[in-house]
């Protein structure tokens, strides 16, 4: 379902940012509600960078700060502390009237469709379309194409009261996508949709990310969308507690699964370990760990080779799918070898605490590790 991508018109070039630049960049973001003694912090030091072409799903319990973060990224609230850049523009530095212009480049899908009851489905979409820059005929055609695509071709002249809840929501989705936005912010966009309509909406959103290189940030608990997400961000109590690029997590799982050490882990445990690992690059000749240092991280080689050096002599070479750094973590001793990148290297790194937690979580994993440990000694 997620692989179906139709050809779309070329995206509108961003005014200020190059196409490869992050669509959204959040750094050190704090946010508060209320004033004086009633002031209450709702976001805490959040950081996230979302490149073009990513469908990001935000999850978390009610009150976790998802919607607040979404409205801040959507230039609907003013930034209190920290920095938010959207499409290359620092929102905190823009005057209010320029924030309005930024919002025109964002597609908003609200949980409540908020369509004008006096306008037809087509006119509701056109209200957004006429903010764009397409020639009238192209814009009109695009409105109709979108409505057609969303299964509303026979209802373009219907007013909202004659449409079902799902149909109204699809009109709202067309309204959000009609101007080829480079960023789409959506709050439970498929909540009112049936299975088929959800499939069409997911296809459209995926198309938007692939063909238009747009970023989609979506608050949802719909597993049908989570399955298609490129990235899962989980928020709790105003903090991003988990930020997983699923493509990387899958790669990590693919690497980990054939290794004896991880074979005993259940899929859940494996995924959990993968989610905790972060990608890190090293250049050729760069020292990754040094003999005699305290151990803090476990490494899995994703791409490239390393030299294992003891007493200034190369004793081994490790490549794609190999791992290192576990011995000192298990024994609590200092590093017994120096590891140097033999060529440009991509690794996935697991911190000491997460490594220990994984061991504690799975006795079989711990046994495997100790077996490997004793084999190496």
């Amino acid at each position, binding site marked *: 379902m997620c692989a179906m991508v139709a050809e779309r018109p070329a995206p509108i070039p961003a005014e200020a940012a190059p196409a490869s630049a992050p669509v959204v960049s959040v750094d050190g973001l704090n946010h508060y509600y209320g004033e004086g003694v009633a002031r209450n912090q709702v976001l805490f030091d959040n950081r996230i960078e979302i490149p073009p072409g990513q469908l990001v799903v935000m999850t978390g319990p009610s009150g976790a700060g998802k919607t607040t973060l979404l409205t801040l990224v959507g230039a609907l609230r003013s930034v209190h502390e920290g920095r938010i850049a959207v499409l290359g523009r620092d929102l905190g530095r823009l005057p209010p009237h320029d924030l309005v212009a930024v919002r025109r480049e964002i597609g908003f899908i609200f949980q409540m469709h908020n369509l004008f009851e006096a306008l037809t489905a087509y006119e509701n979409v056109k209200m957004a379309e006429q903010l764009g820059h397409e020639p009238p005929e192209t814009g009109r055609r695009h409105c109709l194409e979108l409505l057609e695509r969303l299964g509303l071709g026979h209802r373009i002249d219907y007013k909202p009261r004659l449409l079902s809840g799902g149909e109204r929501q699809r009109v709202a989705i067309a*309204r959000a996508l009609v101007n080829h936005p480079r960023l789409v912010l959506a709050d439970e966009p498929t909540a009112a949709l049936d299975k088929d309509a959800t499939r069409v909406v997911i296809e459209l959103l995926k198309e938007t990310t692939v063909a238009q290189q747009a970023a989609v940030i979506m608050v949802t608990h719909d597993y049908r969308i989570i399955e298609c997400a490129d990235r899962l961000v989980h928020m709790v109590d105003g903090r991003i507690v988990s930020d997983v690029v699923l493509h990387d997590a899958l790669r990590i799982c693919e690497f980990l699964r054939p290794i004896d050490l991880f074979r005993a882990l259940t899929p859940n445990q494996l995924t959990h370990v993968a989610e905790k690992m972060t990608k890190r690059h090293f250049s050729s000749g760069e020292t990754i760990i040094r003999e005699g240092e305290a151990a803090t991280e476990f490494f899995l080689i994703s791409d490239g080779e390393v030299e294992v050096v003891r007493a200034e002599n190369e004793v081994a070479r490790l490549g794609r799918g190999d791992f290192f750094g576990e011995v000192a973590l298990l024994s609590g001793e200092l590093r017994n070898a120096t590891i140097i990148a033999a060529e440009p290297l991509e690794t996935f790194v697991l911190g000491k605490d997460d490594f220990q937690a994984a061991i504690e979580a799975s006795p079989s994993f711990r046994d495997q590790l100790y077996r490997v440990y004793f084999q190496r000694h």
Partner: protein
Amino acid sequence: MSIATSLPGRAALHPVPLAWRNLTANKRRLLRSSGGIGFAVLLMLMQLGFERAFFDSSLMVIRGLDGDLFVQSAHKYQFATQDPFPAAELDAARQIPGVASARPFYADWFDMFWKNPADGKIFLIRAFAFDPDQPVFSFAQINAERGRLKSPDTVLVDRRGRPFLGMDRTAGQSQLNGVTVKIVGNFALGPDFMSDGTVVMSARTFADVLHGAAGNPPGIEAGVIKLAPGADPARVQAALKKTLPVGLSVMTKDQLIAFERKFQAEVSSAGPIFAIGTVVGFVVGMLISYQITYTDVADQLPQYATLKAIGYPTLFLLRVVLEQAALNGLAGWVPAWLASILLFRVIGELALLPMRMSLGITLLSLGLTLGMCLISAAIAVRRVVAADPAEVF
């Protein structure tokens, strides 16, 4: 980086007619709102119509005097008040170059009692008089019948006078101040807010009728001056002012009308009463319009907030709300205006007042209607301005 905040040109040229759609989406609601606003507009139109009828009726006599300049007592605060001066004063006016004629106009509003020939009841009326050889009116019917007035104790009666006066030519004769007069003709003038009817007679009959009442020969209320062809009214007016006694004023017809209008609008209680009536209609209309706009804005607040969120400037939303309010006003004004034409006609016939829809009343009522709707919308629209687009998430 330059970021425009105004709408792109295309949106400005071919926008979805949101205000119109909002207005016409619910026909029943439109009917209710236009009915409410129309009621207030009708109130204003009636007040404006009465006010105009009041002014027009009080000015009909002045408008009907066939003169270029008018001489009257400088102590008068309105035309229809009594402060006569000797007819001989006009002799000096006749000597002024440029004056073709200076004719005496007699009038009485307070001492002339008419007996209804049918039932014998007596009513206060107004009476005008002139020398039949020196006509002062431009009313064709009076001028056509003025020869009959040369006979003593003859009068012309106002057939548009109030019915209870019994001013019917077929009656043949009646009594004025107890003097029997013969009805020799009629004309159509109509009552005003002071008088119920009018009789016109010769100066001689006027003296006869009033002689019994006052015992002295009457003075004249105005001198009606016609200019010779090519004479400069301003120069002749200045010369008359210099020549005539200080106690007399000289006015052109326009000045005399303005003098009378000023009294009615500012001094008499009638002008302010109608103005207040119009203001009451305006305020009622504002309240109705405010309620309509406020309810509509409240109902659609999430939609307006959504438009803000997707990039519409607040000014655009203000324009939509104000435009819708103005359209609402028009939707109420049109039926009220049409209804008022009918009502003017009915009331004019019943009250014998010159109730007529004029361009002035049309434009003024339209302006007041749009004003009341736009002011109330400007108050109600604060909710749209305050709408937080973040709240739609």
